[in-house]
């Protein structure tokens, strides 16, 4: 009797294994969500990119408007654009200033640059808004714009982080980007520099930096998911 039991048990095990494996295989084909929530619907990377690019375009638009207002009311002389009394506090961050440079840069690096820029502007913009709100030369409209700008930087950073996560998940970039999760650790030395800048200089610098962010995001998108709109 023990001789007949062993082949039967083997057969049973094999059958069970087959069933189990087939189940596993079918499960393995399920899509992965960006958020680790059950029942979420997945957004494509292209879609995510479009959203952050739109967001950054809007942010740049607001900064442009504010800058024009400043120029109109506070700097009547024509050729004073760019007359920054001191450098932007983000000049320490290495940003590619040409097409080739930007294209030569690795995706991961580019993403890091974007995130660095966004992180660096979070506090200065908040203080900029505060100073405008308390300044009676400016109307409420400008103060609201400044607040919106400040919020947008925050939102955009989160968005770009999500994009980075997705890219990491898809294997487009390596996992080192996740080290940016603690942004405060990045730029401790800059904490004081921007406080010395005047409002106009801050605005001028941010206008330029928001344009950089928008452009870098576009380059990334057209490099990674070029099918739509490139």
């Amino acid at each position, binding site marked *: 009797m023990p001789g007949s039991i062993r082949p039967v048990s083997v057969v049973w095990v094999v059958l069970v294994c087959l069933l189990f494996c087939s189940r596993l295989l079918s499960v393995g084909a399920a899509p992965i969500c960006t958020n680790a929530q059950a029942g979420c619907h997945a957004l494509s990377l292209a879609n995510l990119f479009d959203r952050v690019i739109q967001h950054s375009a809007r942010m740049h638009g607001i900064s442009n408007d504010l800058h024009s207002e400043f120029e109109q009311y506070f700097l009547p002389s024509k050729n004073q654009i*760019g007359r920054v009394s001191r450098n932007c506090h983000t000049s320490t961050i290495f940003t590619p200033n*040409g097409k080739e440079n930007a294209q030569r840069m690795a995706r991961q690096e580019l993403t890091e640059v974007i995130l660095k820029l966004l992180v660096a502007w979070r506090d200065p913009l908040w203080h900029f808004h505060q100073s405008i709100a308390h300044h009676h030369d400016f109307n409420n409209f400008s103060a609201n714009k400044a607040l919106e700008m400040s919020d947008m930087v925050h939102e955009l950073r989160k968005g770009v982080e999500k994009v980075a996560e997705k890219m990491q998940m898809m294997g487009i970039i390596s996992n080192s980007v996740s080290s940016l999760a603690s942004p405060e650790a990045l730029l401790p030395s800059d904490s004081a520099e921007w406080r010395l800048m005047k409002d106009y200089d801050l605005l001028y610098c941010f206008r*330029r930096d928001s344009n950089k962010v928008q452009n870098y995001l576009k380059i990334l998108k057209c490099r990674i998911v070029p099918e739509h709109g490139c």
Partner: protein
Amino acid sequence: MKKVLEVILLLLLLVVTHAKGTRYSPPGKPALTRCRSPEKETFTCWWEPGSDGGLPTTYALYYRKESSDTVFECPDYRTAGENSCFFNKNDTSIWVNYNITVVATNALGRTFSDPVDIDVVYIVKPNPPEQVAVTVMEDKGWPFIRVSWEPPHKADTRSGWITLIYEIRVKLEEENDWEMHLAGQQKMFNIFSLRSGGKYLVQVRCKPDHGYWSEWSPSSYVKVPDYFHREKSVWILITVFCAFIFLILTWLLHMNSRSLKHFLLPPVPGPKIKGFDKQLLKNGKSEEVFSALVATDFPPKSSNYEDLLVEYLEVYIPEEQELMLEKSMDLDVGCLKCEGSASDSDSGRGSCDSHTLLMHKCDGVKEEEERQAKEAHGPGYWECGLSNKQPHLLHPQAQAQRQLQARSDDNISSIGRKQTPAGLHSPARRSTEYVEVERVNEEDMVLLQPVSGRCGDVEGYPEMPYGEDYSKVKGVDMDNMLLLQREVREETENCDTSSTVTTTQKPAACIHSAMPVEGEMVLGVNGYVDTATVCTPPTY
């Protein structure tokens, strides 16, 4: 030595210039007009030279980059043409502030222009879009134009370095107004609502997010083929059909215009006297006319003439009455009346002395009728109660006759007028003649007079009272006189009373006069007296 030589040279130069009469000076101030980048990778700056001061002047462009004090000179003065400086890819940095100055130098000195700060990102003006293709396509029978193009080849949209938005404009060849369409980032656009057979011009231009619009691309021509839409042909058929039906209807209408006219505007029926031969009128013999008017079966027993309010009376007028009637011919306007004798006591008479009255009236009527007959008007419709004694009374005075006739002419003509213009008066209205009590003479005979129009109403037709105008009897006084109530009408200028009517008027405008004329009319207007009443004698 050298210095001396230089000084001598300068002096010579000065002398020479003075001798020639010209002045040399250091160059005027140049000015940087604009800097443009076509693709955000290179850029060019142009300047406007100032006066050269008469001497050969050279220009140089110097620039400084942001946060650096190194001054560089323009790398390329030739590529972009005269008075320009071209920065190639290697020399161009985006998001970097350039501080640019132009210097003009000649033998006598140098002049610096005002410095200009630029950031290449904000000076991008791309080239126009290329390969603009325009084709006519069809969508359910309606044509439309599809325009497609490519971005300028220098602008790198593929890598996402530049994002361009496009704008299209269209117009018909012969017109001046362009139709603008913003196409966003797409490279294809459809234009609808085209004119059949029209020739269109299409142009495209582009712009980066923050920069300048490019120039318009060269015009592309396209001709829309003639199309005749199905719907239109159906409408044309319908229109033709309706027009045809309309024509037929018009023709039918024209053919039946008369009957239609009769239907819509029925003619006023002419009054007809049963058994009356119009030829008698034409013959002009009053006796015959009169006798013809006498109908043996008049009034018809089963008549439904609603205006037949006066019963048939046989009236007898003695001789003297006739005379009096003849005298009293001064009639007022538009009224027929016959006057009874002044001395007539009138008591106990029958209702109306209508015989004479009617005679005169009918006489006048006859005359008028003779006249009117020529105009083919029917005679007035009279309700006359006449006796056989009429022939005696047909001799009024000529003048009176005429007057009476005149008056009656008016009356009849006005009545006649009533008949002719169809629709002027209600067709049902027939000129009816009522008799009313004029007075009662001493023989207890009621003198009647015809009721005619209002006093003073010549032009219009006299309104025949329909039977609601009765004289109300107020009472009978001691002398067996009938006291009648009378209303005063405003129309009558002089409501003179005569004969019958007595006391109980509203006296204001009424004057009793010896001339009974006018009053008769007013009374006539009021209505008639019922036969059962006793007439009052005239109150002269």
